[in-house]
């Protein structure tokens, strides 16, 4: 007759707790990553309009375009000629004020412009600064009348983005610390359950590394299983939420921009989880050295 496996319940609990911790960590990584994706996506609409004076030569315009390209912060420059600006303007205004669209004098006032798109590798929080620098450089140039980029909106957006990033980082650190605390307690409890065994092994002359080895193995196994489970659960969560966003919030058009953590990150998470499990167990199995506790009277 084998005595009931009391440790089974404890092992299962440890596995569940540790897996839950990894899920929480993974989910927060996922949320913050996709949040950043979305913020960058929204930030991509940031454009700058460079209004050119009417007497600017072809050469002068090319110089300005070259200046923008040389800055390395610009992905696209489109010329909107006076004629194009005019026809756009006519189309837009025709229905509201058909009279104005025929006023040739007024139309002469509409300048040609360059539509400038910022490079996509510039983080949202930097856009405002980059635009400011570009604008002041351009204004000093001959043939540039004015530069417009919705200064107000861009600045507010940048501030919003950095606030979000700081929040995500703080929340992330809190979650990781809390999970590590919960995890180390779970591992300590399971090591504590083997206390009697450690006492006996010490007494009959097992070396520290002999005593630790099974705990290292068990901790590593716990780490592999729980982090793999957690990645799987996170993936399920991700697929579910994505389909929800695609179906219910289709107007946001975010579906194709939501991504799962990269395969490399998955491998890092699993290896890190394994190492954490092994290290946690290793640190919990210190010398107990009280084989005589039972013969001691209080």
């Amino acid at each position, binding site marked *: 007759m084998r005595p009931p496996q009391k440790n089974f319940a404890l092992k299962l609990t440890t596995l569940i707790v540790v897996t839950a911790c990894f899920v929480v960590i993974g989910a927060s990584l996922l949320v913050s990553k996709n949040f950043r994706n979305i913020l960058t996506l929204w930030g991509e609409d940031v454009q700058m309009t460079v209004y050119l004076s009417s007497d600017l030569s072809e050469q002068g315009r090319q110089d300005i375009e070259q200046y923008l390209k040389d800055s390395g912060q610009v992905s696209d420059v489109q010329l909107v000629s006076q004629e194009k600006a005019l026809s756009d303007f006519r189309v837009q205004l025709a229905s509201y004020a058909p009279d104005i669209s025929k006023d040739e004098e007024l139309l002469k006032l509409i300048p040609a412009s360059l539509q400038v798109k910022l490079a996509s590798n510039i983080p949202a929080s930097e856009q405002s600064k980059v635009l400011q620098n570009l604008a002041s450089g351009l204004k000093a140039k001959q043939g540039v009348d004015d530069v417009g980029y919705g200064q107000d909106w861009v600045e507010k957006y940048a501030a919003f983005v950095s606030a979000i990033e700081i929040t995500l980082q703080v929340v992330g650190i809190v979650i990781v610390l809390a999970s590590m605390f919960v995890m180390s307690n779970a591992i300590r409890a399971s090591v504590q359950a083997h206390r009697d065994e450690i006492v006996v092994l*010490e007494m009959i*002359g097992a070396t520290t590394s002999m005593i630790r080895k099974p705990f290292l193995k068990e901790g590593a196994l716990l780490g592999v299983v729980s982090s793999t489970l957690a990645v799987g659960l996170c993936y399920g969560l991700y697929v579910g939420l994505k389909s929800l966003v695609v179906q219910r919030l289709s107007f946001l058009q975010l579906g194709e921009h939501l991504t799962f953590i990269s395969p490399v990150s998955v491998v890092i998470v699993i290896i890190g989880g394994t190492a954490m499990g092994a290290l946690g167990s290793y640190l919990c199995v210190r010398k107990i050295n009280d084989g005589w506790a039972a013969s001691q009277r209080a």
Partner: protein
Amino acid sequence: MIEFSHVYKTYPGPVHALKNIDLKIDKGEFVFLTGPSGAGKTTLFKMISAYDVATSGGVNVAGYDLAEIKDGQIPFYRRKIGVIFQDFKLLKDRTIFENVALPLQIRGDKTPAIQRRVYEVLEQVGLAHKHDQYPEFVSGGEQQRTAIARAIIHQPGVLIADEPTGNLDPRLSEEIMDLLERVCSQGTTVFVATHDHEMVKRRRKRTLELKEGMIVGDTK
């Protein structure tokens, strides 16, 4: 085999658990250690089994200088001695066979050799027929005999037993003492701490008496 010279042990407090202990036990001797509760019996055994070090003085057991022993050497020293406790300290989730085999496994013996030796020792303590039982399902006397089998399987030079019969009734206690005497007769030095004065008197063995950390009597 066991030699103490001018050993003092002081715990924070300060509690003077051992004071100027001088003793010498030869190879193959059987010695009782008696004394009231708190006299220092367990403290003395802790010194012998390298669970604690003397505050001052020299402790020498089985050729090891325990005042100087390094942490890394302690496991190897413990493989040269055997220890028995009042509460047996058996592993509940292993059979009697598995419990007894532990010291040989740790030493790295081969399985066939372990099997042979385990059955030999279980025969010696009269437990061969219970080899596949779990400790919880055998009597207290049988549990202590399992613990003794585990303590002698590697043929240690020294066997120390701290109140090995404390949890057993008088008849079982006699059985266990008989067994320990037999172990001694095969050449192992046996050192037994006990409260049982009647039994000590009957057995007519060398007896050391401790009181307040000092040796106040030695029948040698």
